[in-house]
């Protein structure tokens, strides 16, 4: 089982996210994280998909994506050739006994405190998804009230862009 990150450039049209996710559902592709946003061009949206599986599973997912007419380009990312980043918001119980330990960990991970109340505080971390996992695992020793994470976004290192490989 490997973890794969795939960026998909799609035509920025009504319902395009539905087309992509509907295909994942009906072909039983299990997705770990999915983000979608506008891009440098109003013509395109960009979807980043993270999933676990074997090589054939990944290839089948990519092949099926290519069959959707709205899909313009697909890039597969590895840890070596890309930068990935994910945003985490984590709400912790504000307990005087653990507060200092949590803040020490937050400082080590460069997580910022973005909300504070008598009973809780919320930390924000933007980092590589694996670092986000590490931080959450660390926090499990304390009382986590709520977690929200965005899923990974990725760009290729260097000047290459996904639009250079568009195939219509």
């Amino acid at each position, binding site marked *: 089982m490997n973890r794969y990150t795939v960026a998909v450039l799609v035509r920025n049209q*009504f*319902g395009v996210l*539905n*087309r992509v996710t*509907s*295909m994942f559902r*009906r072909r039983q592709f299990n997705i770990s994280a999915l983000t979608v946003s506008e891009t440098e061009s109003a013509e395109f949206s960009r979807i980043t998909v993270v999933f676990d599986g074997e090589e*054939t599973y990944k*290839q*089948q997912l990519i*092949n*099926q994506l*290519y*069959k*959707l*007419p*709205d899909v313009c380009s697909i890039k597969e990312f590895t840890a070596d050739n890309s930068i990935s980043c994910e945003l985490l918001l984590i709400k912790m119980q504000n307990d005087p006994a653990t507060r200092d330990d949590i803040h020490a960990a937050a400082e080590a991970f460069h997580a910022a405190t973005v909300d504070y109340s008598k009973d809780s505080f919320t930390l924000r971390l933007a980092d590589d998804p694996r670092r986000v996992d590490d931080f959450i695992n660390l926090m499990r020793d304390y009382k986590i009230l709520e977690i929200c994470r965005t899923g990974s976004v990725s760009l290729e290192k260097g000047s290459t862009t996904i639009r250079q490989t568009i195939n219509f």
Partner: protein
Amino acid sequence: MLLSGADILVKTLIEQGCDTVFGYPGGQILNVYDSLYTHQNEIHHILTAHEQGAAHAADGYARTTGKVGVVISTSGPGATNLVTGIATAYLDSIPLIAICGNVPTTQIGSDSFQEIDITGVTLPITKHNYFVGSVEQLADTVREAFTLASSGRPGPVLIDVPKDVQIAKCEYTPKQPAQAEKPYAAKDIRIKEAAEYINAATRPYIYFGGGVITSAAQDEMLQLAEKIDAPIGCSLMGLSGIPTDHPRFLGMQGMHGHYASSMAMHNADLIISLGVRFNDRVTGNRAKFATKAKIIHIDVDGSELSKTVNAVCGLRGDVKLTLQGLLPLIKQSSKSDWNATVARFRAEEDDYLDNREGLTPRRAILTLNKHLGANTAVATDVGQHQMWSAQNLSFKSPRRFVSSGGLGTMGFGLGAAIGAAFGTKERSVLVTGDGSFGMCLNELATAVSYNVPVVILIMNNGVLGMVRQWQTLFFNKHYSNTVLDRKTDFVALARSFGADGVAVSTAEQLDAALATAFEHDGPFVIDCTIDKDEFVLPMLPPGGSMDDIIVKVGD
């Protein structure tokens, strides 16, 4: 020129070379029907009895002509009635455009009368679909739909056109018919790889499907077979791809395939598969499927390569162009040992053939063969009669077997046979069962209205024969809800629709009835009595392998 959306839609269809459409009117598509009235000298609309029949007719038209079939319906129930027809076309990769009306854009999403989210409903059963939000997009959307439906691996495309978009006006400039995307051959490196495997093979078997018919690769395939001295088999969708009596052709393989064809595939050391997708009805138990063979797979749809069975060499590209690249790299060779083995399989198959006296299913189809012209299209419904047809029909030209292979749609046949008659401009044939015919017989009205020459052969056994066969073999003869024993008099029924017909119960009567039917002006029904306990054989039990093949009853 400033035109309404409805006029633009119809003019764009005409511009794209479409001269025949099938459909059924209704409230939210009225404007388009008004435009069809205006343009009735340029585009012929066939009114069916039901939208499903219209979709199957457009499908049958597309299968027999290779052109894009077009079906039109209103919103809501009209649109949902198309769904089975669209799904049938999707599973068999048939180019089809479905055009539906919808409520005005201002009412979309408010659960208006006859409003349905048909783009949502058809998302998984179309290559792509469009909701046309403004009249300015309409003409180009239709053009893009024609390109998409016919490019690469063909398939259905749906266009949802709200009422206000049909009414609104904009400038229309005619354009040339849209071209399908240019086909391409597989990569040279893959072709070289494939050639090495083929040149090294001692027991090659060529296995083709609908993709060979779509890309018209018959000649190249036969050249390859001659060069490497290989037998040829096919999937259900490949039938009619090459003449049935071609000396290298072993027939369909798979669950109810020809014994020799399935045995040759099972014993081959290389399966050269062309435009197929290794469906479960073809492979049975995949772990035991063709274990002695390496598989080379050429398909225009890359996602089919190694989807269900692993290919040592997967070539994404048009079958015809890829074979053209491959042929010069192939060494001429003769394989007498392998062909002797194949000849032995053929001889064994001859021993298993059903040569009983009387009106057996096989004899019924063989009798039909005597009456078929070189260009006659034969449609089927789904069930035992479909398999008997697939096993025993004799084809002379491609695109003349019209059958729902992937979805297995009972009720497909009559609409499809009507569409096929319009497509070929010739008499067509429907082979059906009493169960399947009961699902679609309303289209007899269409056949009568347009005086469509269609010979309808009902293999009437009073039961749902294929399900009954499974119940006999695997469910302790618990004939749960498969005994129809209805009192329908199909000949009287045909007459009540304004057609004619005759009931037969012997082979001689059938022969005479077919002679009458093939001379008859308009649709003709033959109610042919078949014993309810006839089996389709051979049979590979579901999930089984060639070791489990049943060739005779009592095995």
